[in-house]
């Protein structure tokens, strides 16, 4: 794997730090006029998701991390692992709850999502930005109310709960933004 010097650190670069794969978020060159140059780096640990600040002497380097994002199709949950497939090669990968994390509440069979692979093993799962899911549970709404004001909780077929307008009913399909967890619109079948 390539080695990157502090001057090559830029947002998105994947490197190994303390044996964990990390992504650089921000890199600032700090140098007192007559003093030692440092790079102050904001970095996300891709295993834990935590963002930390670290300092390097300018000119130091880190090993690159073999981390790639791959679009895959979600297949099924066997109770212990969730299974995914690369649509072009039909290669399959499995990931446990720890890795899937919050993404699980947006994953529906056959939907596509992004799997982050580290050394060809799943590291994280990111659902598509927008998903279409069916409402399985919600209070009956008031007919004729199309304003969207107020709203009510609705449980979706993947287990997630989102706020929806009062006029949306059980059995309807809705579009949700997974980054914010917000209802976008109804989807006509």
């Amino acid at each position, binding site marked *: 794997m390539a080695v990157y010097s502090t*001057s090559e650190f830029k947002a998105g670069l994947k490197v190994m730090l303390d044996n964990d794969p990390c992504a650089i978020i921000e890199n600032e*060159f700090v*140098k007192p*006029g*007559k*003093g030692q140059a*440092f790079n102050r780096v904001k970095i996300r640990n891709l295993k834990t998701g935590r963002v930390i600040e670290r*300092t*390097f002497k300018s000119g130091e380097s880190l090993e690159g991390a073999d981390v790639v994002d791959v679009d895959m199709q979600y297949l099924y949950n066997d109770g212990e692992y969730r299974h995914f497939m690369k649509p072009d090669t039909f290669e399959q990968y499995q990931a446990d709850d720890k890795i899937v994390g919050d993404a699980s509440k947006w994953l529906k069979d056959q939907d596509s999502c992004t799997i982050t692979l580290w050394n060809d093993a799943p590291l994280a799962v990111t659902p598509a930005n927008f998903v279409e899911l069916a409402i399985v549970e919600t209070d009956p709404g008031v007919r004729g109310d199309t304003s969207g004001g107020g709203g009510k909780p609705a449980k979706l077929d993947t287990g997630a709960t989102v706020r929806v307008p009062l006029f949306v009913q059980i059995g309807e399909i809705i579009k949700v933004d997974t980054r914010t967890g917000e209802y976008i619109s109804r989807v006509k079948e």
Partner: protein
Amino acid sequence: MSGLKADWQPTCSLDLLRLRAQTLQKIRQFFADRAVLEVETPLLGSAIGTDPQLDFFTTAYHWSPRQQTLFLQTSPEFAMKRLLAAGSGSIYQVCKAFRNGESGRFHNPEFTLLEWYRVGYNLSQLMGEVDELIALLFEGNVLQATQRVSYQSLFQQYTSLNPLVFSYQEYSAYAQGIGLVDAASICGQDHTMWLDFIFSHQIQPYIGNNKLCMVYGYPACMPSLARINENNAAITDRVELFINGVELGNGYFELSDAKEQEQRFDSEIAVRESTKRPAVIKDERLLAALGVGLPDCSGIAIGLDRILMLLSNSPVIDDVLAFSISKA
């Protein structure tokens, strides 16, 4: 931004070109009013500063059949001191300076310096003049009253540590306590490195809030070209300027003792060798000039591009340069 602008276009706006021109005019008027002589010195020199933290550009001078290595100057300091020793009186210069490998939000490897020397001034008098110049350049920006503070009291105020006395135990416990996890492994037993680390992480970003902050009395382990204070050998007569956490300049009551200067050159050259920095040629002509006699004087260099960044609220140095290094 680069996505919107064609590659040949300037990195700064045309307004910034005008602001730079106005600022230069103000500076020239300021020094003309005070009878300080404007000078020019070579950007290409046969010798170069020995500063352990500065890297330089070299170039090959062909003058058949000879070939000589010349250095692009990291500051005009040595040449200006030779003029002072020759009896120029107080002088100033606006010129380009070159520092290899320095690139970032506040750094471009080629940048503009305003450097001036006042014969007969001590450091405090020079700080007074700096205050007047900054007030002129920031006219209409309403800075708050200038703050003069010693390095030691600033350090103690922000960290409770004594910068003049090195204690690995206290310094590393402090760094660990505030989450600077890399400090101890980077700095080890190097007092100067610790001071640079802590100052740049925990002090500098927070000083000079909407005002000029002049920090004087740097520890004796970071003397550069300043004299040791005559009443306290633990500090030097060196000052640094900050506004809104941005380092703007560095000034000294100038060292004039040729012997001490040569010792500092030699010890800096030794540091460069031990850290495997490119070899330098020490400036024998400067030493010869100091040997004849540099008049007592104070001098300071101010980064003009950073002044323009502050005047125009630009977050990145590229925004004030006609063409930053990536478009040069």
